[in-house]
């Protein structure tokens, strides 16, 4: 009865481990099928992430903030199609308006906004104006720029400038709420507010009530106007991006990267490292241990001393010194973990094979004249298979944890973003001191879940493995 209970208990752990593993395999399959390799390589490319918010918390945080009326603004991107257009013509100039309606319903200020646009114009460059109409009727002009006729206006981030052959110029710009033009323009409205606005960022002025610096709810109109003096001006693209304080399932980091994306592309890499290291190390460990145990004598002793030697090395220190010189390659890391992973496994296998060697049926078959190779193949290896499987499962987390630790120290392979590298970035940006918990929580949890899955599977395999004395 007790044994049955015991079995069931281990079985439960194994089932939990197995379902965690299935979950991880699910993420891996999805990532490989639906996220193209090209996109996966964009992790460290800042331009890829420019339209994302900075340091945004996970979107579900808002559900917990409902009772406090302190909901955080969501990230919002308006495209050109969502703008209401109107135009107005005079004899010598033409005015084009693109108006975005932003319904601001949150209890806190957004963390900024940006307006990227690209214009095509002929000989006479147009002027560009951005203004905001607030729910209380005030209107602020926050940006005015008469574009230069000389094509040298690509000073902003991501700015591009190309010269079309038919004298058409194209200019791409991005107006940030933090840019000097915007803050300077807003200073002209300082009299309207009952508090000093000189030290505040633009979004905390635009979205603020006039009496006190609190967010004002309502519909804001962002109006983008071009004043052109010929008919060649075409607004090709415009967006309004209100940077939220919450975004997606897991939020974003200091570099605007979507953490959900990082978690997903990290999964296949972690599993690859774990499985590659564990399978190689267990195979080497199995055969090394077998030979050391079965041969015995001087060769055996020498082989054991070799294992002892490896096990006495302070691995973390050596890992760091080696990575310092050869680091930053996935293949190197895998090789390193195999090199220091097999000795422990070899020692276990040696102990077992010494035991099995002395079992009566093995001795009998040896007396019957079976060759050593056949004895090992027919009697010893089948007995070791269950243990080897358990050892394999238990070796996976060791490799994953080692990779995470080395990545955290900065020796990860930058072309394969891993959870350890995400945590390194977080630590370098002082995320734990600034309270960006979502940036720390998710990658670490994934490392833990992956390790736990294999530990549980390994433990339940280990419990079931038993040496048979008869055959």
């Amino acid at each position, binding site marked *: 009865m007790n044994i049955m209970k015991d079995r069931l208990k281990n079985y439960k752990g194994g089932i939990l481990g197995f379902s965690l593993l299935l979950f991880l395999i699910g993420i891996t399959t999805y990532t490989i099928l639906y996220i193209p390799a090209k996109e996966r390589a964009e992790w460290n490319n800042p331009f890829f992430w420019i339209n994302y918010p900075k340091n945004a918390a996970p979107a579900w945080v808002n559900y917990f903030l409902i009772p406090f009326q302190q909901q955080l603004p969501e990230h919002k991107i308006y495209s050109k199609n969502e703008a209401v257009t109107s135009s107005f013509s005079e004899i010598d100039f033409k005015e084009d308006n693109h108006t975005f309606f932003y319904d601001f319903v949150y209890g806190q200020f957004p963390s900024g906004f940006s307006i990227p646009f690209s214009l095509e114009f002929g000989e006479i460059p147009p002027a560009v104006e951005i203004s905001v109409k607030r729910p209380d009727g005030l209107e602020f002009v926050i940006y005015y720029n008469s574009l230069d006729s000389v094509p040298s206006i690509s000073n902003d981030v991501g700015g591009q400038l190309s010269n079309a052959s038919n004298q058409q110029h194209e200019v791409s710009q991005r107006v940030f709420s933090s840019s000097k033009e915007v803050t300077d323009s807003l200073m002209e409205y300082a009299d309207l507010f009952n508090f000093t606005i000189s030290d505040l960022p633009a979004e905390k002025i635009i979205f603020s009530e006039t009496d006190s610096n609190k967010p004002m709810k309502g519909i804001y109109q962002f109006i983008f106007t071009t004043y052109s003096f010929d008919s060649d001006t075409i607004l090709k693209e415009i967006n309004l991006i209100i940077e939220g304080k919450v975004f997606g399932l897991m939020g974003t980091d200091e570099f605007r990267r979507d953490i959900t994306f990082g978690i997903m592309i990290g999964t296949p890499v972690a599993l690859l490292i774990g499985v590659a290291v564990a399978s190689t190390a267990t195979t080497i460990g199995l055969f090394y241990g077998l030979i050391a145990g079965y041969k015995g004598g001087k060769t055996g002793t020498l082989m054991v001393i070799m294992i002892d030697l490896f096990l006495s090395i302070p691995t973390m220190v050596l890992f760091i010194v080696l990575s310092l010189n050869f680091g930053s390659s996935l293949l190197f890391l895998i090789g390193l973990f195999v090199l220091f992973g097999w000795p422990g496994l070899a020692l276990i296998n040696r102990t077992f094979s010494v035991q099995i060697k002395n079992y009566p049926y093995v001795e009998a078959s040896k007396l019957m004249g079976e060759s050593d190779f056949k004895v090992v193949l027919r009697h010893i290896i089948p007995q070791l298979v269950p243990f080897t499987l358990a050892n394999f499962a238990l070796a996976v987390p060791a490799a994953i944890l080692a990779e*995470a*630790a080395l990545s955290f120290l900065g020796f990860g392979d930058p072309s394969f973003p891993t959870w350890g590298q995400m945590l390194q970035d977080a630590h370098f940006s002082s995320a734990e001191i600034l309270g960006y918990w979502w940036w*720390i929580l998710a990658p670490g949890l994934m490392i833990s879940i992956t390790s736990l899955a294999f530990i549980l599977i390994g433990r339940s395999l280990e419990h079931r493995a038993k040496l048979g004395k008869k055959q």
Partner: protein
Amino acid sequence: MSIIIYLVKKISILVLVLIITLLVTISLLGSTIDKIMVDNIRIQVTNSLSDSISENQRLNQLQDPQERQSIIEEQINIQTKSLGLDEPWYSPKKISNSLIQIATLNLGNSRFFTTNDGSSSVNELIIEKLPNTILLFTTSSITVIVIGIILGSYLAKREGKISDKLVAGLASASLSVPPWWFSMIMIVLFSYLLQIFPARSTPLISPGTPGYIVDLLYHMALPFITMVIIGFASSVYYTKYIVLRVIEEDYIKTLGIIGLPPRKILLKHALKNAGPQLMTMLGIGLTATLGGSILIEEIFDWPGMGNLFYNAVIQNDSPLIIGLVYFFTLLYLLTRLVLDLTLSFLDPRIRTGEE
């Protein structure tokens, strides 16, 4: 007799490991060390010559700076030759020379770091940080073991309760959680949200001032608590397992039949017999945390050897890296040796039996 053979075997393996680790380090950082040693000689020679200039007649007569320079160069060349620095790092003479230099703690000067007193000697730097590392990691490891023994032997008496499953589950979980990640979470919790402990564990008061010890202990609290939380579940789990196995032995059962009270059996006989295995557990815990100390000290900014090592690696401060590798390996191997020796005294079977 057997104990001597055992000892010799153990020590020779440890010495071999030390040599191998140093060889790897030297071969990887060797060329930079050479440059540093030549620089040191240059400074030494220049200093000693300018110091003795008033006494040294011959140099005094040489008013021509170029001639004086050539004499200095000559001196440097003689000294580099005598140390074998003109040969490449892989020449046998050179390697043995470097090994001796390191083994005799002739570790040179750090390039970027100084002690609180302003000295940049690698030895002094390490000696300043070493006590902090030992303080944090031994106190936390011993606390973990004590909790393990108390809770573990208590739970061993009442097997099969929910607490058993809880401990087993916690032990598996704490093995799969990276300790350094857990440290970051603890900082978010206790420094950012609750604001009980400082996020940076380097004391603000300089050593020597009256309140230093109190400040140091206050700053140590968070890393200490973190390490105890990470370690205690495994410790309880394994102690329970070890004590259970000892209790199952016939001689303990006999004591019960004789009529000794269970508490006395547990405390006096069972724990005594579980001693060697508990020692092993402590040793494994200590050596494992030593490697992890690099990350944990860095995250908490605890002024220990691990933190110094991390910063030396980041700044590529070769003399300091080599010195720290030497000390880390030495500390690690000495821990293992002490453990092996204690075990062989506690349990004579280890040093005699083959299997």
